[in-house]
């Protein structure tokens, strides 16, 4: 086979490696004739039954245009209404019926958010649907996810989305660049079971800039027959709690105070400097210090089983449930692997989601933390579960309340 790539003119440098169009184009060129038989990118505008918005990105259509359309016969369409974290959209744990096309819509919103009320630290957050993290999306293996991504004209920046759960075109990043005022539709097939990060990746330094401004979340792909332990026994949960851990790198002024800015994007140059330190000023759950404590604490009952889904798109973390455990833990996020059992602390690599299942056995307050306790106590990585129910003395009992020694 002849080589089609002119490597001299490709200029694959470090920056270009992170840019969508170039890589996708290069991949198509490498594949050569094979690109026709096996598309590098799925075709966008194929479903005839539902008119797609035409005001979409004129993505590079080279490989796509020649590719065979996906066969969607037999698929039914369902709409998934996304909800704000820490909640999960309505979903089945065990899929009924044949694989579906799950339609979701995400509106990108650039908005000023308070990160820490005590210090007044704030950020012009970049968000999917107005929340940090972005909403949890849930599908089953074999389903299609059909995302309409909208970037309203009121925004200032270009955005896109890279689904770690998807296959090809930089996770869809290469096909979803939208400028303010544009929308795009991407359909991809969920073929890997697990919880996966998604995030914005517009290119170059804008990638960490967008990710550390809140533009990330979790895509959950359940096995069709639900979750199982290592022996194949069904595992079900009563409640799903979705935690997004966000590291922020907020610029400070010469007096050490956090700087404030007039509009989204104004902090770009300062942020790049702050990010270069690799030391976050905040590491918080669900957007802000204390978002999941006090009024925001998560409620549960003794005997309830909770699936804790944890996303960290950028940086390693180590969740720990103080006073409890991870009964079943998929710390690397793959539901294709048997869960580990009885863990005290689990490790979630930056750029991934993980999940842990626990059945509460005692009432009271449980702190769910990043067990780098400096980050938990000083940077904000703490959530609370408030659990109702009967205390079980057979598990723990205060035999002697604190008293003077020797009394």
């Amino acid at each position, binding site marked *: 086979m002849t080589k089609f790539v002119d490597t001299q003119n490709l200029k694959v440098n470090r920056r270009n490696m992170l840019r969508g169009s170039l890589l996708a184009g290069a991949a198509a060129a490498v594949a050569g004739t094979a690109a026709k038989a096996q598309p590098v990118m799925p075709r966008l505008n194929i479903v005839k039954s539902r008119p797609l918005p035409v005001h979409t990105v004129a993505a590079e259509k080279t490989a796509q245009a020649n590719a065979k359309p996906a066969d969607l016969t037999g698929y039914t369409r369902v709409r998934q209404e996304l909800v704000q974290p820490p909640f999960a959209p309505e979903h089945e744990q065990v899929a009924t019926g044949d694989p579906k096309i799950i339609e979701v819509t995400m509106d990108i919103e650039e908005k000023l958010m308070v990160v820490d009320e005590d210090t007044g630290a704030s950020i012009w957050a970049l968000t999917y649907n107005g929340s940090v993290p972005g909403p949890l999306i849930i599908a089953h293996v074999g389903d299609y996810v059909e995302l309409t991504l909208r970037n309203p004209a009121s925004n200032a*920046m*270009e955005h896109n989305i890279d689904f770690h759960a998807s296959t090809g075109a930089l996770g869809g990043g290469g096909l979803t660049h939208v400028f*303010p005022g544009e929308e795009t539709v991407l359909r991809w097939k969920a073929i890997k079971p697990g919880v996966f990060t998604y995030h914005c990746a517009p290119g170059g330094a804008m990638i960490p800039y967008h990710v550390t401004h809140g533009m990330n979340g979790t895509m959950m792909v359940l096995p069709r027959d639900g979750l199982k332990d290592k022996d194949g026994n069904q595992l079900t949960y009563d409640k799903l709690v979705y935690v997004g851990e966000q590291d922020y790198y907020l610029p400070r002024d010469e007096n050490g105070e956090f700087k404030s800015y007039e*509009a989204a994007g*104004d902090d*770009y*140059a*300062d942020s790049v400097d702050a990010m270069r330190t690799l030391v976050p000023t905040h590491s918080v759950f669900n957007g802000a210090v204390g978002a999941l404590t006090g009024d925001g604490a998560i409620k549960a009952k003794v005997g309830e089983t909770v699936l804790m889904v944890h996303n960290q798109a950028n940086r390693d973390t180590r969740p720990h449930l103080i006073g409890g455990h991870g009964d079943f833990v998929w710390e690397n996020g793959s539901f294709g692997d048997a869960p580990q059992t009885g863990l005290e602390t689990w490790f979630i690599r930056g750029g991934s989601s993980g999940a842990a299942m626990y059945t509460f056995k005692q009432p009271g307050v449980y702190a769910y933390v990043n067990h780098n306790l400096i980050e938990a106590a000083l940077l904000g990585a703490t959530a609370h579960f408030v659990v109702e129910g009967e205390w079980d003395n057979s598990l723990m009992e205060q035999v002697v309340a604190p008293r003077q020694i020797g009394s």
Partner: protein
Amino acid sequence: MFRALTTAFLLTTLLGATALAETVEVKMLNKSGKETMVFEPAFVKIAVGDTVKFVPGDKGHNAESIKGMLPEGAEPFAGKINKEVEVTFDTEGLYGVECKPHFAMGMVMTVAVGDVTVAPDDFLAGRIPPKAKKRFEEQLANLNK
């Protein structure tokens, strides 16, 4: 002797041309008046062989040519973020220049090189963010002035 004369003549011509070529300074700024993320000036008309020096007045900016918005045969260029860059324009025509990180925010400028009075039909035909497009249209209005 003839060779020496020719060399001398050539040198004079070349040096003379260099001495005549101008350098125009363009600042890259977060803010100018009410406008944010701007090249200043945003429209420059120069002669073939002149140079534009892009100066980072604020941090976080660069200057690079936009794909599809430069004359045929012209060499694309891309400055580094936060770095001053000088670009000599040897091909006559119209050039669209962007700050890569702030393209969607409208940080663009136009460089007209030589005798250009009309923009090519397809100059604004590519995919340009709305704010950048609006600014380009304002800049192109200077062509006939």
